[in-house]
């Protein structure tokens, strides 16, 4: 095939060879690839823990692992997936690669800080892996005190250090993105010409910068409390364990939006390009990202409805939690309105985008259930909550991540993925996901508590369904890992703009040259103006 043609062009991939050219790179595209490898690794680690959890839950007796081991499994599943996969996933891979390109910049504002942030994630990850190998940690990913500070006999401190360090990775990524969006835009790239993916990354970065330092200082206090027993969260010394919950959720609820907002940005791109229409109500979608970032900071108390929080505070937090649904709904409605009379093609990324819209809607609406005080008392700490946030995190974020990965794969690698296999896996993931998590809504409503490895026998049917779904889901995630890897060598060579998209990232060769553009583009049109697209469009779907 055209391999010879690919070798000849200078791209960011052949600009240097050898480990050193990667480990000391300052190119945002190479750093994105480093992140891609890292988060994929952690995704499969977290996936192994998830598999063990699901296998254990096949039977009601709790006969595969001991209670202690089970506690460690769900803790390490949560920690790996949240701190080392979901939070860096879209921003640090797709965002890192495409945010500078989409605004027409040669690189991020601070390339060396970008590389540093990858190293921080790796160092934090090594601490976490050390903790896992040394014996694990069993506090739940939430680290609730005083269990985490006083009673747990597992590797809490090593894990906390890992999260603390990787938190600074997240902070530095956010800082870099904010400054880049402010200062590095190409001529003519005004704020309201930016692709919506950039807007969502900007909103995400605000949360990363404002929220993550708070979890850092909270973990620092947990560390001091556990190491020196200073009493901040210990009632025996006059401290207040619920204060920890407030500080933890002040970050960890906004962190949910760190995970899902970039996904929403990806979906905005996908819906537009595969229906060949500008996103309906661009300004509303752009500002809804900012609104989610702002309101998201004011809702953390809905995690404390059954703690010592006053009922009046509960009322306010409940109300504010309803408010955050409004900008989320704006996005969903505007995406569907974009489809209206669009020229829709059912390419793989679009299938993922559809998956996102449907599953995020279920995840979001059940979020309203648990945001209401009365209902939440019934389902607190049950599988209903588990199902709710997996619909948002897995059904939302990972769907968008997969969609974005497929959409931008030709740009990142210069090769197309195999469309048939990709569609098949998208379908498998959708079916597997729903089979895994829909039964958990019912389980939770019927009273199955989270974090138990034995349960009453009448719940077994639903648990078996869920485990069966998880097996299907695992196949769905393994397939892309195989065929994407395959496509690096055997995939069809992609042109500069295989989807006929409008973003600046498509106006340069695939894969891009080291400084992205041969000459810095001048932007004269709004985002998503398909009348400007020239060149051949590959017909898919």
């Amino acid at each position, binding site marked *: 095939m055209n391999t010879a043609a690919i070798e000849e062009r200078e791209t960011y991939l052949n600009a240097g060879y050898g480990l050193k050219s990667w480990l000391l790179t300052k190119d945002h595209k190479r750093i994105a690839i480093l992140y891609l490898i890292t988060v994929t690794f952690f995704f499969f680690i977290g996936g192994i823990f998830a598999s063990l959890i699901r296998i254990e839950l096949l039977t009601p007796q709790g006969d595969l692992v001991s209670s202690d081991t089970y506690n460690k499994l769900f803790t390490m599943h949560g920690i790996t997936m949240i701190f080392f996969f979901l939070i860096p996933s879209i921003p640090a891979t797709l965002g890192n690669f495409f945010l500078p390109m989409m605004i027409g910049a040669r690189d991020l504002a601070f390339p060396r800080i970008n590389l540093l942030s990858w190293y921080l994630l790796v160092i934090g990850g090594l601490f976490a892996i050390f903790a896992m190998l040394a014996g694990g940690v069993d506090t739940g990913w939430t680290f609730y005190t005083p269990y985490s500070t006083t009673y747990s006999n597992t590797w809490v401190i090593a894990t906390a250090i890992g999260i603390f360090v990787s938190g600074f990775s997240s902070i530095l990524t956010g800082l870099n993105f904010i400054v880049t969006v402010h200062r590095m835009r190409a001529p003519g790239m005004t704020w309201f010409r930016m692709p919506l993916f950039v807007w969502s990354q900007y909103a995400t970065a605000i949360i990363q*910068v404002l929220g993550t330092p708070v979890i850092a200082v909270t973990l620092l*206090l947990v560390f001091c409390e556990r190491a020196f027993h200073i009493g*901040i969260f210990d009632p025996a010394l006059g401290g207040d364990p619920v204060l920890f919950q407030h500080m933890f959720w002040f970050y960890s609820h906004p962190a949910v939006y760190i995970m899902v907002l970039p996904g929403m940005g990806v979906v905005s791109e996908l819906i537009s390009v595969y229906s060949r229409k500008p996103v309906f109500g661009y300004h509303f979608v752009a500002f809804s990202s900012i609104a989610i970032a702002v309101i998201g900071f004011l809702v953390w108390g809905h995690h404390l409805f059954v703690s010592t929080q006053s009922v009046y505070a509960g009322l306010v937090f409940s109300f504010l939690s309803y408010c955050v649904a409004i900008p989320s709904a704006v996005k969903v409605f505007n995406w569907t309105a974009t489809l209206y009379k669009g020229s829709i093609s059912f390419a793989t990324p679009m299938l993922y985008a559809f998956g996102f819209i449907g599953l995020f809607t279920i995840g979001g609406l059940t979020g309203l259930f648990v945001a209401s005080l009365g209902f939440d008392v019934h389902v607190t700490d049950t599988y209903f909550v588990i199902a709710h946030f997996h619909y948002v995190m897995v059904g939302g974020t990972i769907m968008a991540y997969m969609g974005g990965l497929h959409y931008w794969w030709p740009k990142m690698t210069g090769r197309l993925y195999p469309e048939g296999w990709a569609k098949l896996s998208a379908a498998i993931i959708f079916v597997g996901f729903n089979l895994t998590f829909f039964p958990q809504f019912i389980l939770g409503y019927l009273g199955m508590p989270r974090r138990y490895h034995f349960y009453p026998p009448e719940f077994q049917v639903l648990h078996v369904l869920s485990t069966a779904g998880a097996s299907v889901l695992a196949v769905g995630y393994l397939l892309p890992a195989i065929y994407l890897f395959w496509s690096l060598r055997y995939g069809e060579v992609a042109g500069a703009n295989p989807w006929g998209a409008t973003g600046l990232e498509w106006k340069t060769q695939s894969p891009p040259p080291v400084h992205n553009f041969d000459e810095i583009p001048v932007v004269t049109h709004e985002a998503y103006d398909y009348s400007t697209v020239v060149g051949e469009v590959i017909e898919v779907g």
Partner: protein
Amino acid sequence: MADQAHAQVETLALREQFDTPEQQKETSTLGMWIFLITEVMFFGGLFLVYTIYRNVYPTVFGRASTSLNATIGAVNTAVLLCSSFTMVLAVRSAQLGKRKALVIFLILTMLLGLMFLGVKAYEWNEKFVEHHVPGTHFHFEGVAEQGPAQLFFSLYFAMTGLHALHMVVGVGILSWLLYHAVRGRFTAEYMTPVDIAGLYWHFVDIIWIFLFPLLYLIDRHMNLP
């Protein structure tokens, strides 16, 4: 050799991702401001914990607070304010391209910073002598409940310790600046590192400006026995 030095100046001056020196300067400055915002949130967590426990245990916190040596605290505040002043003069000298003055003011700022840390170390030592360090040997006279008193001193050490850590980092940054200033790397056109290091230094000072009254002064009016 001269070429090498020249190339070094070039790379310090304009990095490849920027079009103009102005863009680079504005970008770096914005980066530092946003970093300082993260620092506000970082310290903010501790200020929150302090505020909450102060409201829960007003009397014990009052007693513990008045046991701190306000005179030494005030002297240290003065030292830190002077260091901010010399830092401003360093930035100004850099703007005017006065290399010698820049070096002198950087050294003065570092010395004042180190003096602050020295006084702080003396104060912490006093706490050890008085058994006011949280832990098994903690004892605070005059209050029935040791727990809340220990909470106060835990927060005292956490907050002043974290602040001191930032001072140490600041002195490190100043040494880096000094190394390059002596070699004449900063000019009136290119002095962004001095500028943003100044922002950081002033920020660390401002943290202390909040810590000092909150920890040392706020309960003086209560005339506790």
